[in-house]
Every structure is written in structure tokens, then in C-alpha cells.
């Protein structure tokens, strides 16, 4: 079965871009931040930047959970992984994130029992199958992923598993956005809200951006035209002097979010007083730890993690890129000492990191290669 892909229609994309251009006031610049790493990927992949008029600038946000993890948390995971009784489990994305003494992949090569899993429920199965071993799941992710960890822990408790624990690095999206808004280095005009995170938390949590800071927000989908339409909605708000949270991604995001998921998170997690973010420093109430009811499953308690703080390598400017102060290519080591094959910083590791996305697609975009052009699909007479 074939579908008319109206989200790739080049003529429509140009029409939307022209409307955006018509709304841009002469002499004014518009800085719009896309919070989510998935959006950053789409922007580079499809050359969205080239379609926008010069006054509209996209600034990449902190919405990539691998990229914002500070080195100390990687080192603490490695310290647990090196224990002989432990089977250490994590998502594939984590394996190449550099800590101060190497990556999980390197520790695995030295003999540690580290296993990539697709789901926290796969880690739970390993705990069931290996009752004599300690199975630790290294949890990362925003509100998109935290409910999955929560349901996994609820199941572990129901089964009475005593050899399973979670090292939680779950973070929440609202506090870093507030930190960026408070930062004098960065003056933003509007925000493209994240898609998948919003399927869980809904649209209401972004209202502080409109109410306290007077900046419009549009929650967006992941297709090129989703992003263009969202930028148009933001430009209309700015032109009309409106300031609202709007939802462009109604196909997947209910206004209220997923109440079942929020309930599970509230049962299993509580907010940490503060948490360190790579490049952004310590941010109050920005991360989730296991609640008192689930303390028995908390790897930090079980293995006595000391709360390491490790500075980034001196040459690494991930922090500035994460804050949107530097563009990826303005970093001193971009593409030279730091590449996707040998990343110095986390932004080059994840495919959703701004540096990796720019390295893979952005530079080539200038050569007009490898970027997927927007085109009309010819379907049942709907072609052009």
C-alpha cells in the first residue's frame, strides 16, 4: 500500500518557506531552538536550514540524553560494570560514550560482562536467568524512556527479584530549558517542542515558557514538513504578538500526555535535588532517582556510588554547543580530534547529537550530496 506523503511535498515545503519568509520583519533576527535531538537530525538530514530565510536561525537544544550525560556518571557506571559479580546492561548508544578512563566498549574488551539490551525488560530477563549474578541496568533517557524503566521496576518488585537494580540517569526536559532561558549568553525567540517526550508529558508543562518568559512554543513532529509548519506557526505567533503553546504533532501527542505513563513514573521515581548536565552544570530538580519505595532496586545505593564529578577534556566544547552558543563546526576539535569514529565528546557519539548530525549530513549538504531532497511522490494522480 502506498501513501501520499504530503510531509515530503517539495512544492508545499517551498510554499511554507515562502510564508515564513513573508512573516520575517526586515532587520530582525529570529532565533528558534529545537529542543529535541531527533529534530536536529531531521533538520540536517533534509537540509531544512537551506529552505529558511536568512533571518531565521535554528539553535540546537539539549534534548539528547546521551549527549547531556556528564563524564562522572559514565565513570560510575564503568566502576559498577567492572565488578566481577555484575552483569552490566545498557542501550547500544551508551557503549561508545567516553568516560575519563575510556568507554564501556573498552571495558567490555578487557573482560567485563557488559551486554547491550534493546529494552530494560531484556535486562530483567537476564536477572531472572542469572540468579547468582547481580544484573544492573544503566538507565538513560528523558520522559520518553523513564516510564519504561518504571514499569520494569514495578514488574521486578512484583516478582520479588533481588538481583536486579537500576542506575538511573533519567532526566527531565523542563529544567534545562528553563536554565537556557535564564542564561544571559543565549537570547532565544521561540521553541520547537519535542515530539516523543510530549507523547508522555503532553503540552501543558511548556506553559512556563509562554507565561514566565513570553516565548512561543510549538510541539512538532519529525517529518521535514512538520518542522517547517511548526516554524511557520511560531512565526505567525511572533508576528501577531501571540504567545501560546501549540501542538503541531496531534497525530501522536495528546494535549494531556499519557496519564498512565505519568502515574508509573510518579510511583517509581522522585526528583533529585540537583543533577549535573554536561555543559549546563548542576540544575535543580532536573533528574529522577528511585523513590524510597524502590530503594532496594537502586544501584547507587546497592554499590555505594560516590557521586563522582569529572571535568570534560579541555579541548572539548560540547558544553557551548549544547547551550547553542557555538555551532558544531565552531568547536576547536570538530572533525579533527573529534569524529564519529573517535569521539572526544558525547555530541559526536549519538546520531542525534548535533555534532554527529552535522558531521554526517551538514557538511555534505553544502556539496548537495547525501541529503534527502524533498520531492513529490507520484501517487494516484496526486503528483506534480
Amino acid at each position: 500500500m502506498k501513501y501520499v506523503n504530503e510531509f515530503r511535498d517539495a512544492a508545499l515545503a517551498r510554499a511554507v518557506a515562502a510564508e515564513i519568509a513573508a512573516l520575517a520583519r526586515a532587520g530582525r533576527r529570529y532565533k528558534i531552538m529545537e529542543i529535541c535531538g531527533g529534530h536536529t537530525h531531521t533538520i540536517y538530514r533534509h537540509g531544512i536550514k537551506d529552505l529558511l530565510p536568512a533571518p531565521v536561525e535554528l539553535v540546537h537544544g539539549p534534548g539528547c540524553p546521551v549527549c547531556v550525560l556528564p563524564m562522572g556518571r559514565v565513570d560510575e557506571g564503568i566502576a559498577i560494570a567492572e565488578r566481577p559479580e555484575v552483569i552490566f546492561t545498557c542501550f547500544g548508544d551508551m557503549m561508545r560514550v567516553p568516560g575519563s578512563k575510556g568507554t564501556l566498549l573498552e571495558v567490555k574488551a578487557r573482560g567485563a560482562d557488559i551486554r547491550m539490551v534493546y529494552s530494560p525488560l531484556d535486562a530483567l530477563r537476564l536477572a531472572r536467568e542469572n540468579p547468582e549474578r547481580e544484573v544492573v541496568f544503566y538507565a538513560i533517557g528523558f520522559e520518553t524512556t523513564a516510564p519504561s524503566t518504571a514499569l520494569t521496576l514495578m514488574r521486578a518488585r512484583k516478582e520479588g527479584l533481588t538481583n536486579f537494580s537500576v542506575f538511573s540517569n533519567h532526566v527531565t526536559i523542563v529544567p534545562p530549558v528553563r536554565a537556557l532561558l535564564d542564561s544571559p549568553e543565549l537570547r532565544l525567540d521561540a521553541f520547537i517542542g519535542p515530539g516523543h517526550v510530549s507523547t508522555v508529558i503532553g503540552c501543558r508543562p511548556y506553559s512556563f515558557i509562554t507565561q514566565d518568559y513570553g516565548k512561543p512554543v510549538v510541539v512538532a513532529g519529525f517529518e521535514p514538513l512538520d518542522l517547517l509548519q511548526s516554524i511557520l506557526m511560531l512565526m505567525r505567533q511572533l508576528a501577531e504578538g501571540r504567545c501560546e503553546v501549540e501542538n503541531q504533532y496531534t497525530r501522536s501527542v495528546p494535549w494531556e500526555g499519557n496519564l498512565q505513563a505519568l502515574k508509573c513514573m510518579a510511583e517509581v521515581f522522585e526528583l533529585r535535588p540537583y543533577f549535573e548536565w554536561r555543559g549546563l552544570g548542576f540544575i535543580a530538580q532536573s533528574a529522577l532517582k528511585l523513590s524510597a519505595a524502590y530503594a532496594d532496586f537502586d544501584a547507587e545505593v546497592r554499590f555505594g556510588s560516590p557521586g563522582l564529578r569529572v571535568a570534560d577534556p579541555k579541548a572539548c566544547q560540547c558544553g557551548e554547543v549544547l547551550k547553542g552558543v557555538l555551532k558544531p563546526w565552531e568547536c576547536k576539535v570538530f572533525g579533527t580530534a573529534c569524529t564519529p569514529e573517535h569521539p572526544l565528546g558525547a555530541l559526536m557519539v549519538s546520531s542525534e547529537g548535533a555534532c554527529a548530525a552535522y558531521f554526517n549530513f551538514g557538511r555534505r549538504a553544502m556539496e548537495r550530496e547525501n541529503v534527502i531532497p524533498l520531492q513529490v511522490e507520484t501517487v494516484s494522480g496526486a503528483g506534480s
Partner: protein
Amino acid sequence: MCLAIPGRIVEIVDADLQLAKAEISGVRRNVNIGLLDEGEGAVQIGDWVLIHVGFAMSKIDEAEAQRTLQALEEIGAAYQQELEELHGSRIE
């Protein structure tokens, strides 16, 4: 792990354990439906859902599923890695 892949629910494996079988890019794997099994919008056999780290996280329609699959295929390496990890998944 940041990806969400469309899949179609083909069987409710164990309602108490919130497990369903989903067909995802040609393979069938167990997924957890515990985030979408309450109320009027509860998932049913035949529904398309976005699956993230083994959990159905939102219901979508078929057109949206096809669009998302097309976009994922274009991502390339990251999607292939996600599929490989999914192939190795045995949620019980």
C-alpha cells in the same frame, strides 16, 4: 534508543503481564503494553503503535506508521542498529 519504531499488535500474549506480540519491520517480538492498556483508548489487536525500548508508547494510524517507517529507513545506520538490537530482544 531514542528511536520509536511503528509496529502492529498481532496478539495479546498475557494481559496480566501487559505483554503483546507486535509485528515490527517484518519480525515479531513481545512488547509491553502497560502504558496503553487502560480506558477507552486501550490497545487492541490490529492497532499500530510507536514502540520505544520494548514499550508501546502511543497509538498511531496506519498512514502515520508508514510515514514513520519511511523516515526511519532513511536514517540508515542508527535505524539498522536499533533493528539489530530489537532482533536480539526476548521480552517475557
